[in-house]
């Protein structure tokens, strides 16, 4: 049996989304910037998609800028805003558990002389609102906090953060890459100034995303070239990708409740069985206020990558926060920021459910996971089966 439980990494493209994209490769191939009929037909398809994004997120079509994906959108939001507002200040605030697209863009800005405050999160991964509020200064330009975390699924109070930012006269960006299609989002009602999204997280194609920029918010360009995207983002319009994004977001937001109910039922069944049947583990992230498809466990006495690879041998795809999968020496910065002990962070596994998963697959995964942990724990010098506790070496 093959079981895909890594939907936070990427989803498959919905076959109906793919169908909608197909004509824009070989038939309607015109450059959307061209004046002739070939171009105008492509431009109409892009306009339709822009309308679909706006309708899904409660913003105006003129506030939607298509990009190559979440990383570009995050880079553009942070660098574009900070570079455009040096008259006000050079200070920006974010959280310690952001995606690397945000954190590494912050590091780059620090090298350029900007100042960044990294706000802590609590043990469930929720941002410390008191710290956030205290960090806002007269020269603070931007606050960037993700809508939901990619590793542990914890949902942040972005409406509340947006309100605080508005009261303090600070711009607010949210990386909503994991949230679109899982959480209700309304840019104008929630008072969000900038929002990043990526199509391949909600059953759209890879390589296309968007940055929503509220009208009137001034930001510098990131990618300079032609006059695409109202002269704000150069590069030939990715018509098939954008068509796919539009179809995908319309379906994801339209079918959100049904999809959430499906993945939540599987996820809760999975958590329930794993907690009952496997000893010595920890559920990472908020117990309830988390993405409906996300579960993240740390398993004691074993290292995450070895669990991942064993599950892979049985056809089950998951991801791990262990250092061994990231290529760095440190395990997940998200788990460490939440205060998860380093050795437990090394043993963390993320399971993210999707539309096609079934109860049968979920039960199969529990069975394989039980066997995997028995075998790996039996092999571990930290595990003492007689005492069932960590043996210090």
């Amino acid at each position, binding site marked *: 049996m093959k079981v895909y439980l890594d939907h936070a990494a990427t989803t498959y493209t919905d076959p109906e989304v793919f169908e909608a994209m197909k004509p824009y490769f070989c038939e309607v191939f015109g450059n959307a910037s061209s004046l002739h009929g070939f171009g105008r037909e492509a431009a109409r398809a892009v306009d339709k998609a822009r309308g679909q994004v706006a309708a899904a997120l409660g913003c105006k079509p003129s506030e939607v800028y298509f990009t190559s994906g979440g990383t570009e959108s995050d880079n553009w939001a942070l660098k574009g805003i900070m570079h455009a507002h040096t008259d006000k200040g050079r200070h920006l605030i974010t959280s310690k558990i952001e995606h690397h697209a945000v954190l590494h863009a912050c590091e780059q800005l620090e090298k350029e002389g900007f100042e960044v405050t990294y706000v802590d999160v609590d043990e469930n991964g929720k941002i410390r609102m008191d710290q956030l509020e205290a960090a806002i200064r007269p020269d603070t330009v931007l606050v960037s906090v993700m809508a939901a975390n990619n590793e542990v699924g914890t949902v942040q109070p972005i409406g509340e953060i947006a309100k605080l930012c508005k009261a303090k006269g600070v711009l607010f960006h949210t990386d909503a890459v994991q949230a679109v299609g899982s959480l209700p989002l309304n840019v104008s009602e929630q008072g969000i100034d900038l929002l990043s999204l990526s199509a391949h997280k909600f059953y759209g194609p890879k390589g296309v995303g968007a940055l929503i920029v509220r009208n009137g918010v001034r930001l510098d360009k990131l990618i300079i070239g032609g006059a695409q995207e109202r002269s704000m983002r150069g590069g030939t319009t990715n018509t098939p990708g954008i068509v796919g994004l539009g179809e995908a977001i319309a379906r994801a937001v339209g079918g959100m409740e049904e999809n959430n109910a499906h993945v939540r039922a599987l996820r809760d069944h999975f958590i329930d069985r794993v907690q009952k049947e496997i000893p010595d583990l920890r559920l990472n992230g908020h117990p309830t206020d988390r993405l409906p498809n996300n579960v993240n466990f740390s398993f004691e*006495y074993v*290292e995450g990558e*070895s669990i991942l*690879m064993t599950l892979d*041998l049985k056809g089950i795809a998951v991801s791990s926060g262990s250092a*061994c999968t990231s290529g760095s020496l440190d395990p997940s910065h998200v788990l460490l920021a939440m205060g998860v002990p*380093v050795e437990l962070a090394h043993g963390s596994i993320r399971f993210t459910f999707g539309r096609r998963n079934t109860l049968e697959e979920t039960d199969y995964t529990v069975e394989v996971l039980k066997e995997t942990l028995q075998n790996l724990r039996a092999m*571990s010098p*930290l595990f003492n089966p007689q005492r069932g506790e960590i043996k210090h070496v």
Partner: protein
Amino acid sequence: MYSEKVMETFAHPQNVGVIEDADGVGTVGNPTCGDIMKIYLKIDKDTDVIRDAKFQTFGCAAAIASSSMATGMIIGKSVDDALKIKNRDVVEALEGLPPQKIHCSVLAEEAIKLAVDDYRKKQGKS
């Protein structure tokens, strides 16, 4: 990213376990850095030949495969010959390791060395 040999060795590791009356034990790594390797040796005191080797490892697939391969390579060898096995030999036997996993083979070399040191200390030969 892993060779077929690494995956095969990881999927069916040899020499897993503990030797209760081991003549030498070597432990390297710690849980904070994500790898611990513990190697147990049973050695013929008259000939210094390694009769049995077992391991316990907390670590990634490469660490477990390296432990399995390295213990397999030293069984039947004299302790002097076992010490000649370098991490590169383990990597070669595994048909390669990704660059960031080379340290797993180094752990295996070090654990063997520590286990032999422990044996020699116990024998008063160090």
